[in-house]
């Protein structure tokens, strides 16, 4: 293939590429530096520590449960926002992102105000045998609160992309509203819902502030681990940077691997 004739590159392109490089270095240099700063031996040793692996498993597990609940509750909302029009809908759509921008420690306290045992929901759920303060359930709702908007926004885009007349045709062919949703709308919006779920799961795993407030040490697998982001901060506060390093590397690696793998799966589907 012949290359295009050389022309003096535009000044703007050069400046823009330099600035872009700067920002990419800013985002990725800390991650690469950290990830490469500990040898595999140290990492393996750290992973075998009981409070490390229980903490990591707790984080993965709680974020996964949060995502499942989010799917169950968030997908219907996304569908309604995509299909119906009602007064104040635009405003409501704007408000959906609020959990992203509320300071996370404040979000944790706000959750405590309704899910604490002496409060509204807390009392109802306590009656059902579920407590949220310093329990896995608490970790789950803290993660769910801050990560739900990612799933809702993405699922909404997915449903918007499904031609409403496909659902109408399904109805005239004898499908009930449920059947039309399950056989037409859901399969066609699935890629977006899946990639929103990936984002929600990964974002849930990253939560620190809200979890710290609502559920510090929680009973899990016969021990009392903390969420992995708390573990990192604890080690840093107690023993300093060098001591926190291997745990940090592990936590970042797990986030990166989960996120990149699942997002690649989600994107591959979209492209074909």
């Amino acid at each position, binding site marked *: 293939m012949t290359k295009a004739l050389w022309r003096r590159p535009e000044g703007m392109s050069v400046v823009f590429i330099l600035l872009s490089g700067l920002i990419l270095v800013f985002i990725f240099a800390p991650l690469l530096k950290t990830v490469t700063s500990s040898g595999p031996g140290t990492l393996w040793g750290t992973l075998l520590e009981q409070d490390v692996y229980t903490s990591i498993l707790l984080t993965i597990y709680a974020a996964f449960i949060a995502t499942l609940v989010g799917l169950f509750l968030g997908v219907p909302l996304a569908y309604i926002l995509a299909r119906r029009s009602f007064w104040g809908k635009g405003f409501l759509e704007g408000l959906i992102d609020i959990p992203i921008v509320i300071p996370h420690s404040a979000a944790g306290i706000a959750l405590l105000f309704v899910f604490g045992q002496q409060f509204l929901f807390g009392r109802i759920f306590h009656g059902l045998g579920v407590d949220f303060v310093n329990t896995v359930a608490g970790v789950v709702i803290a993660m769910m609160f801050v990560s739900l908007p990612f799933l809702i926004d993405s699922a909404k885009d997915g449903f918007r992309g499904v*031609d409403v*007349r496909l659902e*109408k045709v*399904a*109805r*005239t062919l*004898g*499908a009930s*509203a449920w059947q039309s949703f399950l056989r037409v709308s859901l399969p066609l919006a699935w890629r977006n819902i899946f990639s929103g779920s990936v984002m929600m799961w990964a974002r849930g795993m990253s939560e620190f502030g809200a979890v710290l407030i609502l559920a510090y040490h929680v009973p899990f697998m016969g021990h009392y681990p903390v969420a992995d982001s708390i573990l990192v901060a604890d080690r840093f506060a107690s023993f300093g940077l060098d001591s926190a390093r291997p745990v940090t590397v592990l936590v970042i690696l797990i986030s990166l691997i989960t996120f990149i793998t699942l997002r690649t799966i989600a994107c591959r589907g979209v492209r074909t």
Partner: protein
Amino acid sequence: MIKIRALKVNLGDFWLEDINLDIEEGEYFIILGPTGAGKTVLLEALAGLYPISQGEIWSDGREISHLYPEKRGMGIVYQDQALFPHLSVKDNIAFGLKFMSYPREKVRERVDDMVGLLKISHLVERNPSTLSGGERQKVALARALATDPRVLLLDEPLSALDPETKEGLQGELRELHHRVKVTVIHVTHDFEEAVALGNRVAVLNEGQIVQVGTPDEVLRRPKSEFVAHFALSRNILSGRAGDGEDGYTMVDVGGIEIRAITELRDEVHLSLRPEDILISRQPLHSSARNSLSGVVADIIPRGAVIYVTVSLPLELTCLITRQSLEDLELRRGMKVWVTFKAGAVHVF
């Protein structure tokens, strides 16, 4: 039989109002109207897919206005087909059968029937995105017919197709209706489609039904400007196409033989643009293959041009200039010859 009584539907900008229609069992009923007249919404309202504000819809003596779409027994085919993109052609056709608790064997049989009926057996394993417009439309028809609906609703089924495909599929629709005997409600803005296919035509304009009748009645006594304009600008005839000879087909139109070029046979319609017809005082021997004698029935001036109606006794409208009128000294009742080329006759 479908009865629509005092139907009123909110279209946002305007209303479909006071819609009353009686559609017979097995009838091919056309709803004709310009773009934006609310034709699609009317179909969706009948199918229960669009909310109605007032009125009643009856099907075989039962009111269905409050039923969910899946209980109404109406199949719909949209202009751009709306095939399920995640399903193969076969699964698209079988889609509705899944809800009828048929045994698997029965489902396969029914799909085969539909595929045979529409001659699309070579497409069954394909994905809808790989099909041409005409093929997609046939799949959509097969899908709608598979569940054996009482009424088939067609939303401009031919208007997104190229002219050739359109003509072919129009023939297939007519044949399909003869064979399946389903009641069809077909909306279109294309008058020739209406004439070619419809047992009866309702003209919809600005949210109201302005005329109902056979295509011929609507054409001869138009009550709307849309129809009147169309009627003046086309000579529409019905006839029987017989055998061809030397590349021609002889069409018998009320006892008069007209030469045309077409593959169609039996009952056909012809249209002939007024500006393609010559008027003369003697017969013309020329490569124009139709030269017929008649009597000037009417002379209608329209600005710079003049429409002359000649009765053979079937009536043809011709377009001539004022100059020609004077040169030929045309008067009402005068005997003239009309001449037009076989190729100028559009058969459909």
